């Protein structure tokens, strides 16, 4: 049986500052090497100062993944030389002899496609800086280091090898990133905020680790490639050796890592500069109180309380952006309409991260739109146009209706004129309508065409019927 395990690194991007200093956790806007200080640059004499909020956020993740959590946590140094590592060691956590149960969490679980995936452990650590390679030829090649990212709080989530296929992996990652977003600890959509390594083995073969996978999308591909590669080796009776392979982003294949990367050469030892942190039951209770409602109970609530269709409830609950909007816009009586408006009309307008960031939409806009539709101040069709405008400009609904002239044509004489025009143009339909009342709707449609959807539907029908003598 194919076994796949994952090691996911997730930045706590919602934190203000880095894990051990007051530089910004969100380093993305900065010029190279400007989001740095003596601590994250490892200047001699500086000492790490633990960001307690990071410990809380990480613990929240552990609790949400049903992990066991420790009474106190310890940090360790993982020693290795790399230019992106300012101290040439990384402050991380370790499940070592004598220090059992000192990391953020362990023994958790998540259900994916009706199968339980075990979480082996969760730990909190610092992200290294970034290397940027420049120059095309061997002679002009240079490596540049940007330490802006160094020290960003990172949560490592390690699963047991419980996945059986790439699709399964993909579904898990979707569930996990929705969960992290729902906890308000991370923005998984940010470039580099979530990275993963995978280990893959097929029946009878050794475990192969795949590193360097840049995105979740590529992870699925890399796993798929690796399974195929191992199967084809097995078919030809070639031994599958235990090794680390790197994902080649360009060629979309895995390649054997030339250097040996063995666990244990890291000379792990306790980081004495950071005293052990107590996470007593008080702290845990506090966190439990802060814990946002989880996605599945949110979904259940939407279905049972508001009678929303399960598919709609699923979309709303698993996307924090939508569920926040929904919770804030609905006033109990309009819940179903708000839900439908989000999943039918709004979704296409905010389907990317950039669009969401640029959107000027406020929850009250949705409340107003539904209100206007219900009280016949605007048609459904016009509401759609108005929503587009709201997302673009953020202007109030009355203002948009005014500016775009989206209000109902409910003035009887104006409407009568238009109807007369339609009746004179559609002589055949007029005759048919007198026999078959269904045809009246066709005439209503024609009126709507002429008014660009603004005609008050009820009034239109009344006038039409009167004119047709129905």
């Amino acid at each position: 049986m194919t076994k796949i395990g994952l090691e996911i690194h997730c930045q706590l991007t919602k934190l203000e500052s880095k894990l051990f200093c007051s530089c910004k956790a969100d380093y993305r806007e900065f010029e190279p090497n400007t989001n740095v200080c003596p601590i994250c640059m490892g200047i001699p004499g500086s000492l790490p100062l633990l960001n307690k909020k990071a410990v809380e956020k990480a613990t929240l993740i552990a609790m949400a993944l049903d992990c066991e959590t420790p009474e106190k946590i310890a940090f360790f140094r993982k020693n290795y030389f790399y230019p992106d590592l300012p101290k040439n060691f990384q402050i991380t956590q370790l499940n070592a002899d004598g220090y059992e149960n000192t990391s953020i969490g362990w023994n958790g679980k998540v259900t994916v496609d009706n199968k339980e995936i075990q979480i082996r452990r969760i730990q909190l650590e610092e992200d290294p800086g970034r290397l940027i390679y420049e120059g095309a030829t061997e002679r002009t090649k240079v490596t540049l280091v940007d330490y802006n990212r160094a020290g960003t709080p990172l949560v490592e989530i390690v699963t047991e090898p419980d996945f059986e296929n790439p699709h399964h992996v993909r579904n898990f990652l979707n569930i996990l990133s929705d969960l992290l977003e729902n906890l308000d600890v991370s923005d998984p959509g940010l470039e580099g905020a979530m990275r993963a390594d995978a280990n893959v083995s097929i029946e009878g073969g050794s475990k192969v680790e795949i590193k360097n996978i840049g995105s979740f999308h590529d992870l699925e591909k890399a796993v798929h490639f690796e399974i195929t590669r191992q199967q084809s080796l097995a078919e030809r009776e070639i031994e599958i050796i235990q090794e680390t392979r790197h994902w080649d982003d360009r060629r979309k294949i895995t390649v054997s890592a030339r250097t040996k990367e063995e666990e244990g050469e890291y000379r792990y030892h306790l980081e004495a500069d950071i005293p052990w942190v107590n996470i007593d039951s008080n702290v845990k209770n506090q966190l439990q109180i802060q814990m946002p409602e989880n996605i599945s109970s949110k979904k259940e609530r939407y279905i049972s309380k508001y009678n929303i269709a399960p598919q709609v409830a699923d979309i709303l609950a698993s996307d924090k952006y939508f569920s926040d909007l929904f919770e804030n816009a609905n006033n109990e009586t309009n819940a179903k309409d708000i839900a439908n408006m989000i999943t039918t009309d709004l979704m296409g307008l905010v389907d990317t991260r950039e669009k969401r960031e640029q959107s000027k939409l406020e929850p009250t806009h949705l409340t107003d739109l539904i209100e206007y539709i219900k009280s016949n101040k605007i048609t459904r069709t016009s509401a759609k146009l108005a929503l587009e405008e709201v997302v673009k400009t953020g202007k109030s609904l009355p203002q948009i209706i005014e500016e775009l002239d989206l209000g109902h044509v409910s003035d009887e004489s104006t409407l009568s004129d238009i109807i007369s025009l339609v009746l004179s143009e559609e002589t055949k339909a007029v005759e048919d309508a007198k026999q078959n009342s269904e045809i009246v709707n066709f005439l209503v449609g024609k009126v709507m065409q002429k008014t660009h959807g603004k005609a008050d539907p009820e009034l239109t029908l009344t006038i039409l019927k009167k004119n047709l003598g129905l």
Partner: protein
Amino acid sequence: MDLSISALDYQRGIKNGDFTVEEFISKSLERIESVDKNLHAFLKLNDLALENAKEIDRKIKSNQNVGKCFGMPISVKDNICIAGSITTCGSKALEHFKAPYTATVIDKLNSEDAIIIGKTNLDEFAMGLSTEFSAYGKSKNPWNMDYVPGGSSGGSAVSVSANECIASLGSDTGGSIRNPASFCSVVGLKPTYGLVSRYGLVSYANSIEQIGPLTKTVEDSAFLLNIISGIDPNDNTTIDNDNEDYLSNIDAGIEGKKIGIISEMTNSEGINDEVLNSTNDAIKTFEKLGASCEYVSLQMVRYAVAAYYTITSTEAGSNLARYDNIRYGYEFDTEGFEFNSYISQARNMLGPEVKRRMILGGFVPSAGHAGKYFLKALKVKSKLIKEINLILTGLDFLISPTVPIQPFKFGEKIDDPVSFMLVDFNTVTANLTGKPAISVPYKIVNGLPVGIQIMADSMNEIPLLQAAYALEKTVELPEVPI
């Protein structure tokens, strides 16, 4: 003007108008000028010292608030950072390293109007006990210039002992304050781990080291501890001491106190007769002062030096890994090097003792060997802590000679690392257990000093200094012959 006065006498002198800050500082600079060519306590002097002195004099004259140090000259070991000035750690690798910030202890001294007169010599990265491993040349013992001053805070001890300044700050990882204090006949205190902020101290073995004062008297030690101790938001390992006052009740005496004499440190083969005799004499003195003394055994002390070198090498291997010459360092052409060979080349700047410990630090905690060395050392450490905590439930103090031997001659031990390491035999226990310990000058035998070490339980600096003060009051020592 008497440059040999204590910090408290200096305070009184200024308050009485016996001398001005400027007078004292300029005399101190003259003294340094004349003796430091030979002693080599200082690596760098503060160019602004006289200017600072004038400024403080002006404040005094115009009755402004003046800090408790009144401009007294204090030297600082060159592994403690001061913004904008060079901190070499006694290493060529940091010859040009300018820290962008100031250590907490320096900020605290500055806010009390101390004048940092200069940075003092040390064994490279504080690894050593003679200053022979400084990349900038050795310091000499003012009592006899053929002899080592001890280390690693050797420059600090020399500067105080030779009356080049009033007091000094050193750092103590395995005895680096107490050892040179003993060898140069000054008072050296290693505080409880966490009592003094390490922010700005360049780490060697960060789990056990502390900054502490080297002074002419025990009172001065308490005076400086009052200033430099306390919780620091820039060091997560610091402890809140509620601003306790180490000085006000220092003459409380030690009547009725129970003292344990550590057998392993007085019966060891390595102890000199002169040192043993002085220690026995000190025991009698303690008894005369009304304390009761008994021999006690700390089994783990026998393994303490081995555990100490294993743990410190491991931490040094990690703490010194950052000197890869990428973010700061010295001019060095990167052309033709890939990363690993560049690092090797960069690390060539480190001296022999540092290299020795880095190699050891790469080995003892490594996957195949940690069980035999590093993890065993940690076990010794935790057993030693248990043992000493148990023994201190029935005793107030533990005493021993600070160093089993008197100062040795330059070159005498440099080629024999193991005998070098054994010099630390009596001092490393306080570091491994986090306990406070002080070295008090007790005798001059054959022209060379002997110090007595007193250890107490964690955060018991108040009684510790009272005991040290009581012992000091019984001692009459000759003037330094320089």
